[in-house]
């Protein structure tokens, strides 16, 4: 175990960077940008170091930091990572770095823009590493405010104002429900004030739902489960709580969409894995079928609606709903493979959807429209862009040798096992139809992505775009790491899967 509090450093480095940036004069925009990028790059380095220092094959928490904070009501400053959170902790500075690199072109209110991103990064990392629910909740909520401003100030006028407040209210509504459920769990975690705890690991050990049942509150555990679930499902987003997402994504600035889709959605998926099976094993088993159905609807519905979208960014937004549906489905299956696949899918989707939003942003930068029908034949004049777009689209539709394929395969295996009881698992879902129907979702994804490629890049060149420039070096530099990551994880998924495995097993044991 490292002496250096590396997780605290990961959480607070961007915050310190934000404070430093605040003191740089407004006029020196380049200094602001460089300082912010340096901060994020440094935290990426730290994240890599943290990952490298972790032992393989350990299920429990590593690099733990624990300090007493508010002992009177059982709150401590407790951080730690395991196989489930570490990939996401690494993904956070990575995607933020690329988003900020792309944001070099921003000229309006540069300082505030970069400060908001740094605060956002700090909050998201905090959610992934926090092991105390109080701390977790603080980081969870703090992530809302910067995003509200990023959408509202730098988004596409005038609808971005509506999208910003919708995003804020929607996610806040979810998290306050979670807060109530959390307080209820805290209440039944011990007999007196000082003996209760907000610590996630201790809560899992003490199983407050048993306390609720013992107090004669038969429905409260289930209500708490749904309180947590709705809070997370809004973030993921899972049907029917998804309606904020298309608005927020379409109206946000490109880098905002990238972080929103690439990282913020992962908070929901991560929290589902971390909290639902461990705190509510019984309720999880009862609700698995319902959750699975919601996930399935997300997959099919997201893909179908994506297909009908005339707006490129909206299409990508709906595709995110479909892809995140696989995460929820994997979790609902409760199997080791399902959870492994869910984490893998989150990582892979973080790479792919970030790339897709960057590509959409690059196009918008040149043509100032997201209308798919106004494009056509771009492949003839912007070959590099065309190549990258096709590559990312292939990854996103789950082409073998790309990361999306591995992730979806694992989720499908898990779902099938949970449907049939193969592989020693309990048949939580009860029927293999979940897996069969999810395959249909993959087909739909292939359909809308290929159709988009065809409409945007193939065919006759529209005369409006004859003078379009191909991608700049900066833009290629932003996309290259994402492509490399996708390909590498697709061809060589073993190490990451093995890294996730022990922790996924530990989680799965709660419900199997």
């Amino acid at each position, binding site marked *: 175990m490292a002496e250096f509090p590396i997780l605290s450093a990961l959480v607070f480095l961007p915050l310190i960077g934000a404070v430093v940036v605040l003191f740089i004069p407004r006029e020196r925009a380049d200094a602001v940008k460089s300082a912010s990028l340096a901060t994020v790059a440094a935290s990426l380095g730290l994240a890599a170091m943290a990952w490298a220092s972790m032992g393989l094959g350990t299920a429990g928490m590593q690099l733990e930091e624990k300090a007493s904070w508010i002992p009177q009501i059982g709150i401590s400053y407790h951080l730690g990572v395991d196989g489930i959170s570490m990939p996401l902790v690494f993904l956070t500075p990575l995607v933020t770095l690329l988003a900020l690199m792309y944001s070099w072109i921003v000229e309006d209110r540069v300082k505030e823009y970069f400060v908001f991103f740094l605060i956002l990064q700090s909050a998201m990392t905090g959610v992934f590493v926090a092991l105390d629910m109080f701390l977790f909740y603080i980081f969870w909520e703090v992530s809302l405010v910067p995003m509200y401003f990023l959408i509202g100030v730098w988004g596409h006028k005038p609808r971005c104002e509506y999208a910003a*407040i919708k995003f804020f209210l929607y996610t806040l509504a979810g998290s*306050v429900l979670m807060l109530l459920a959390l307080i209820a769990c805290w209440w039944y975690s011990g007999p007196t004030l000082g003996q209760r705890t907000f610590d996630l690991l201790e809560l899992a050990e003490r199983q407050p739902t048993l306390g609720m049942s013992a107090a004669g509150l038969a429905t409260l555990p289930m209500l708490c489960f749904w309180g947590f679930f709705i809070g997370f499902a809004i973030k993921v987003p899972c049907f029917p709580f998804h309606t904020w997402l298309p608005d927020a994504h379409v109206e946000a600035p490109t880098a905002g969409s990238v972080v929103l889709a690439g990282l913020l959605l992962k908070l929901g998926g991560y929290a589902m894995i971390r909290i639902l099976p461990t705190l509510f094993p019984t309720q999880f088993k009862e609700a698995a079928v319902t959750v699975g159905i919601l996930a399935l609807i997300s997959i099919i519905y997201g893909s179908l609606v994506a297909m009908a979208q005339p707006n490129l960014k909206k299409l990508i937004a709906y595709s995110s709903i479909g892809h995140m549906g696989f995460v929820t489905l994997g979790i609902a299956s409760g199997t080791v493979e399902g959870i492994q696949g869910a984490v893998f899918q989150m990582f892979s989707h973080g790479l792919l959807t970030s790339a897709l939003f960057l590509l959409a942003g690059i196009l918008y930068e040149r043509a100032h429209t997201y209308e798919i029908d106004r494009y056509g034949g771009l492949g003839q004049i912007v070959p590099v862009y065309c190549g990258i777009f096709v590559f990312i689209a292939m990854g996103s539709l789950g082409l073998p040798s790309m990361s999306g394929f591995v992730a979806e395969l694992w989720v499908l295996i898990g779902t099938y096992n949970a449907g049939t009881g193969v592989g020693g698992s309990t048949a939580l879902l009860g029927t293999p139809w979940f897996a069969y129907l999810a395959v249909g979702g993959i087909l739909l994804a292939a359909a809308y992505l290929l159709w988009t490629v065809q409409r945007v890049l193939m065919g006759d060149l529209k005369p409006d775009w004859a003078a379009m420039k191909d991608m700049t070096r900066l833009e290629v530099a932003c996309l290259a790491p994402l492509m490399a990551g996708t390909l590498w994880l697709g061809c060589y998924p073993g190490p990451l899967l093995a890294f996730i495995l022990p922790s996924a097993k530990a989680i799965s044991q709660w419900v199997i």
Partner: protein
Amino acid sequence: MLFLFPELILCGLGLGATVAALFCRGRGAGRWALYGFFVCLAGVVTGLCLLAYAIDLGPEATGQLTPEFIARTFAVDPLSLFFSTLALAVCGLAMLFSMEFVEEVLEEHPAEFLALIAFASLGIACVARSRDLITLFFSLELVSISGYLLSGMLRREPRSLEAALKYFLIGAVSSAIMLFGMSLIYGLTGATDLRVLRDAVGEGHLHAVGQLAGVRMVSSQDPMVITGILCIVVGLGFKIAMVPFHMWCPDVYEGAPTPATAFLSVGPKAAGFVAIVRLLMLTFAPSSGPVPWAQPVLWLCALTMTLGNVVACRQTNLKRMLAYSSIAHSGYILIAVVSLGSADLALPAIVMYLIAYVLMNVGAFSVVIALSNIEGREDIHAYNGLSKRSPYLAYAWVIFAMSLAGVPPTAGFLGKLYVFMAALDDRVRLYWLAVVGVANAVISVWYYFRVARHMFFVEGVRTEPIRVGRGAGWAIGLSLAGTLVLVPLFPWLISFATSAAQVLGAW
């Protein structure tokens, strides 16, 4: 006498300002406000030290340090010491944020304005101290009468006078109703000492007079006791603007001069809640059997929150909006009041919420004051493009809005957390009320951030930078620091709030 230090300071400050009023005009008054602030600051620091000392000593030893004739009507427990220090802090902040106002806007009697603030704060402190019905009522009255005058300070401004008249009429009627209730309670028990009242109402030892008056059953469920208590609830409900006794609040807040509004939104409200703690939670709450006032207050609490927040969404005048928001906040605090079964959480929750409320409301109002000193209006469109004209004001508003809405990491979140903890207590089980509470928190985000929308997303007609006045700027800075620093200081705060509440349990 040592532990009456905050009251002595406030009294001296009020008298000092009254004398100063003979000499000073305009700019001089601003200087006096600054002096007043520093006196309060010194007082707050000393008060906190005394508080630590008092908690350390324990209630009995603290009581022995006070002369008997004072201790009979003035409590010297840590909780009351805390509330009087809070009153001192409110007074100091009010001196600061009204600095520009007394210098530039108020043409006549600038120092009287400061004197009234000091006297009203003295009233708040004395409410917290009272352990006798008479003292309690007249302390409340000190706060109210100063408040009527404060809201009518702009004598040439019809809206200000209208606010004063409405505040006066409604305040006086509510006082009369409360007095009637108190006279009944006095008649049935033959005492005005709150501790005697508690024993009488709590355990059914009503005085023989009660039987003379034709009361056959002597208990907290007796109709005459209930009538008395409900009259008091109505009177206190007016003071804290509980629905349906809230009608005066938006009009008074809108019409009164902005610094007076800022003071009225925290001062009298804090006094009202302290009185509620003393009277309802500690005196009229029998240890066995149903609490006579709990059921009506429970429903009014849900109504207060919801009405305050829903109507606030429709307001375009910021003072009016904050008036409805303050009604809603009364509702949140009432959750803790009706959760009084949660012995170790309800009182700390009120203490914590009041601290947070004072900080964030003073802060939000200081932003309004700073802008209205320059623009002369509080219309929401005056805030268009503020983030470019004065980032300090705009970002300060965002922090206060987060705190008012209960978004972490701010003081307001801690207050809400504690309130909901009390409501979800196994002995209370007010789950539906907690759900109403959080739903309201979400609604409130809409209107607090609607102002942020105007500040950040809308381009303003005027673009020249704003110079924030010294007093308002400092008041904002102090409340900002308080709002943010309370989270790291949370453990200290909890220890303090809990120990104060334990002391009261033995009161």
